[in-house]
């Protein structure tokens, strides 16, 4: 493999803003990122504040290879993961009888109801507010741990290892949790949206 040449001159040094101006520069961006994930304005505000304080403490370690915004978002992601973990500690363990997989298959392991046709153009659904209402309420119905794991893994794009660490789960636990989250969310959308809005054959 050819050695990589780092031409410093070709990378303009990202400006490092004065910490006191961070709020004006990054405040809303970080807030939007956080509020989408934690679904609570006050919590999101606190997370933004904690992110700035943590950034201030570790400012000397900021590597100018990344932009300041990328660096702050990375800190915020860790704060969000911490928040999920702390919440989880306060949760009662989920009941094992509440297994979304149970009703899907017969005793021979075959589908009871064949999965329906979701040939959708996701971009087309963007405009349908009724769909997103259903989607949000299905998400809300996920048990805490499943919702957190699924959101960290898919929205925050953490690796499976990082998600395990964030939620203090073993890999096997994580797979089971994510499988249940996917199955439950799928079932909810199938019942409350796709069966009621059959897709037109293309």
């Amino acid at each position, binding site marked *: 493999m050819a050695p990589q040449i780092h031409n410093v001159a070709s990378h303009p040094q990202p400006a490092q803003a004065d910490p006191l101006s961070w709020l004006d520069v990054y405040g809303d961006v970080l807030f939007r990122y956080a509020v989408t994930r934690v679904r609570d304005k006050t919590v999101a505000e606190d997370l933004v504040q904690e992110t700035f304080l943590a950034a201030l403490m570790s400012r000397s370690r900021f590597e100018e290879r990344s932009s300041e915004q990328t660096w702050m978002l990375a800190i915020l992601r860790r704060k969000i993961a911490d928040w999920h973990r702390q919440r989880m500690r306060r949760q009662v363990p989920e009941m094992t009888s509440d297994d979304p997989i149970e009703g899907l298959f017969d005793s021979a392991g075959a589908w009871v109801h064949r999965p*329906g046709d979701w040939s959708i153009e996701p971009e087309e659904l963007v405009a349908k507010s009724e769909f997103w209402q259903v989607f949000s309420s299905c998400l809300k119905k996920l048990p805490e741990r499943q919702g957190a794991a699924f959101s960290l893994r898919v929205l925050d794009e953490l690796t499976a290892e990082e998600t395990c660490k964030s939620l203090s789960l073993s890999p096997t636990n994580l797979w089971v949790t994510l499988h249940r989250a996917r199955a439950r969310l799928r079932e909810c959308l199938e019942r409350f949206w796709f069966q009621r809005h059959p897709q037109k054959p293309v």
Partner: protein
Amino acid sequence: MLTCRQTAELVSKRLDTRLTLWQSWSLRLHLARCSACSQYQRQIEALHALLRLWGRHSFPCDARLSDSAKDRIRASLAKAYRG
């Protein structure tokens, strides 16, 4: 031969870890023969795409920090900065 139940499990697991050779071979074999499970796999892929879209669209892109939150954050930042 995998059951549909085992297949659904592997469809999910494959998104989070590398399957063993045996698992991925059995999965492929089952999916090639079973349209219900193939449909399930497509649904799960769609689910991920939908969650990402939701993340981008569910909150108005103009959501902003409130003035009171800004005051609070500014004060704590200034305090920590100036020591």
